[in-house]
């Protein structure tokens, strides 16, 4: 009898526990927090972007592929193409705040700089879906097979969608919710940089078949015409532009390339092991080294590695959450 009661109690606890929303460790307040999304161990790691101190690690235990930060700079949106919803957590408290039932197939998320909109790239619906920050779906724009790369202009009026499979890129006018221009890009194009002032759209990629991409393709941001190609072997996939210059990360050769603002190659350095993600901030470049499970910190000026932080397995995306 006693045992049965104990069993029921434990069962009840399990049920209560199961019903409760997941809570992760709260992330201590810092001026700048670097967020590393690690796909191999399905975790999210938080670092003090200045000191490199590990602030928290969230064992999400769901097949997450990436994340995005909402405009409040404290709500982290997690997605994965095998997940049937996107999860939103408050990094200040570690508590789950929302879940959006999107269905499977979300491969990228971009938060609009202007206005209440989160763009979710859906490879199943072959569309860019627009959600309000309260989870309400506000619109949908049909694009290609796998819209893996999303870029936006400063005004937040134009959205550039680079498809991974069908060799196409789309320019979307957000206000009108429709594609205004389509142009060709190489197959397995991924990663890009929109240089609005110069009217350039830099697009990287892996290359298809057994040929590997060694070039960055630079298109006209307004017409989509291919302007020129720039050598950046092998497999340029991540881009960053700071006041120091333009940085491109080629994962096939683990090389970081740097051009000055005029497009002149300044230097290159080998960094990390098969790195996929890079963001630039504080005159630094934060690079996620996928194979070595580290974050490399590179001085943007000297191109020297100034620090290496251990993160979870398979860091695949980096975000910067700046203090309020």
């Amino acid at each position: 009898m006693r045992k049965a009661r104990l069993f029921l109690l434990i069962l009840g606890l399990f049920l209560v526990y199961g019903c409760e929303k997941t809570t992760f460790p709260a992330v201590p307040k810092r001026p700048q927090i670097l967020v590393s999304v690690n796909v191999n161990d399905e975790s999210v790691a938080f670092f003090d972007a200045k000191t490199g101190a590990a602030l928290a690690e969230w064992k999400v235990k769901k097949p997450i592929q990436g994340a995005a930060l909402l405009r409040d700079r404290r709500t982290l949106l997690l997605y994965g193409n095998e997940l049937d919803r996107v999860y939103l957590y408050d990094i200040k408290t570690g508590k789950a705040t929302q879940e959006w039932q999107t269905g499977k197939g979300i491969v990228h998320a971009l938060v609009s700089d202007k206005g209440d909109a989160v763009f979710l790239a859906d490879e199943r619906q072959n569309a860019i879906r627009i959600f309000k920050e309260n989870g309400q779906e506000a619109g949908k724009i049909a694009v290609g097979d796998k819209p893996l790369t999303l870029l936006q202009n400063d005004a937040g009026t134009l959205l550039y969608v680079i498809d991974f499979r069908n060799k196409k890129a789309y320019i979307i006018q957000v206000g009108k919710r429709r594609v205004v221009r389509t142009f060709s890009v190489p197959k397995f194009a991924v990663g890009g940089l929109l240089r609005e002032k110069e009217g350039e759209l830099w697009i990287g990629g892996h290359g298809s078949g057994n040929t590997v991409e060694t070039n960055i393709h630079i298109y006209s941001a307004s017409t989509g015409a291919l302007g020129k190609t720039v050598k950046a072997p092998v497999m340029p996939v991540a881009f960053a532009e700071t006041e120091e210059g333009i940085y491109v990360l080629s994962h096939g050769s683990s090389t970081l390339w740097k051009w000055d603002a005029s497009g002149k190659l300044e230097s290159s350095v080998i960094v990390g092991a098969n790195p996929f993600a890079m963001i630039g901030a504080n005159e630094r470049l934060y690079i996620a080294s996928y194979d070595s499970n580290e974050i490399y910190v590179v001085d943007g000026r000297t191109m020297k590695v100034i620090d290496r932080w251990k993160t979870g397995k398979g860091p695949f995306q980096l975000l910067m959450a700046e203090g309020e």
Partner: protein
Amino acid sequence: MRQNTLTLEQKIWLVISLGVILTVSFSSFLLDYFYQKLYVDKVEQTLLQEGKSLASDYHGGAVSETFRKQIEWYDKKSTAKVMLVNNPRELSACLPFDINYQSLISGKDRAKLLNGETVTKIGYEKRFHRKIMGVMIPLLDGRRLQGVIYLYIPLASIQELTKDVAMIWLPLAVLFVFVLLFAGKRFVRHITGPLKEMEEVAYHMSQGNYEAQIPVRTNDEIGRLAKAFNVMAKAIAEEDMRKREFLANVSHELRTPLSYVKGYSEAVLQGLVKTKEEERKYVQLIHREAGRMERLVRDLLDLAQLEGNSVPLQKTPLVFAQVIEDTAVKYEPFLQKKQIALHVELDHDIILEGDADRLEQVVQNLLDNAVRYTPTAGKIDIQLRKVNATSCQLIIRDSGKGVPKEKVPFLGQRFFRVDQARTRKEGGTGLGLAIVKQIVSLHDGTMSFFSEEGKGMEVVIQLPIYTE
């Protein structure tokens, strides 16, 4: 349940055949397995060694053109195919992106290689459109997988080798199987042949023919069985003969007094008797013969009881000398009548565990014989003595006519008589010694005779002494 219709020969041959086929197939499987395993292992070791040796020339950084040339040169010289893979695509560097490309090195392999482990691959490789045995050695610069040295040889060349072996092995194995099966058949026939003969002989025996013998060819279990069978057949034949003889004897022994009784009674009935005295004499004769028949029947019954052990002995510890003395007393009138001197020398300390009545019968029968065959004024010795702590001897010696030496072994057989003419002058039934023999043997004793014609007879009975 349906009865198994296979003969023993078929069964044994079936077992042998199954054994042979199983053994051969198992050994061929083992051979193949070990050959493959050892050879493939050897190849793997060699490839790994070569690969590691080649990889030792890599000292970090991007893979240099010199190093590539070196590998290419080695590829030309080596029997194995040697490749330097440094295309990130082939190394599965783009793994997190679903680029729909069958990389030479899978994500799993990459993870292993990144840890500095080598990877071995046996089986079909899509890229080469053939089965291969290959090894991959990582070229690591820290955690950076700069390239992989991929060495492989087509598995076909290994299989060709096994094929060569099979070419020699297969016909040999087939030949071996056939030879073994043929030899097995011969062997089985050799084993079961005598069994079949036995069956036939047993069948003959059941028809009353005890003469057939099985030829004994071997000294194994079957041979011994054949021998035992022969002995049994002989014993049965002897027993059968003894039975006939016994029946003949019994009928003969009974017929003689019967014919007396019949003849004399007929004479009386038909009035051939003239005087009262003659009539009395005839009746006396009839009475005597009836008495003989009674004794005969009693002895036969005794013998049957003793042999069949239908009336168990009532064994108790007893002083044997007392039994002998009590019996001997009964013979005093006969001894005096024949003027026979009886010399008795008994050890009164001897105690036997026995049936007093039966032992008395032994002494009585022996004394009967002794008195019967000892002539007037002869002598009889009775002696009971200890031989050792566990046995004693009863010796009864007479000064009668004795028994011819060659007939001594037959003493104690039923109806055996020294005088074959079967005259009833001495008046025995021919069963006395047989009964004695049986009683003695039931007391775990032995009986032996020592005699020569004309020199009397000595009967020695050895019995175990009772020990508490």
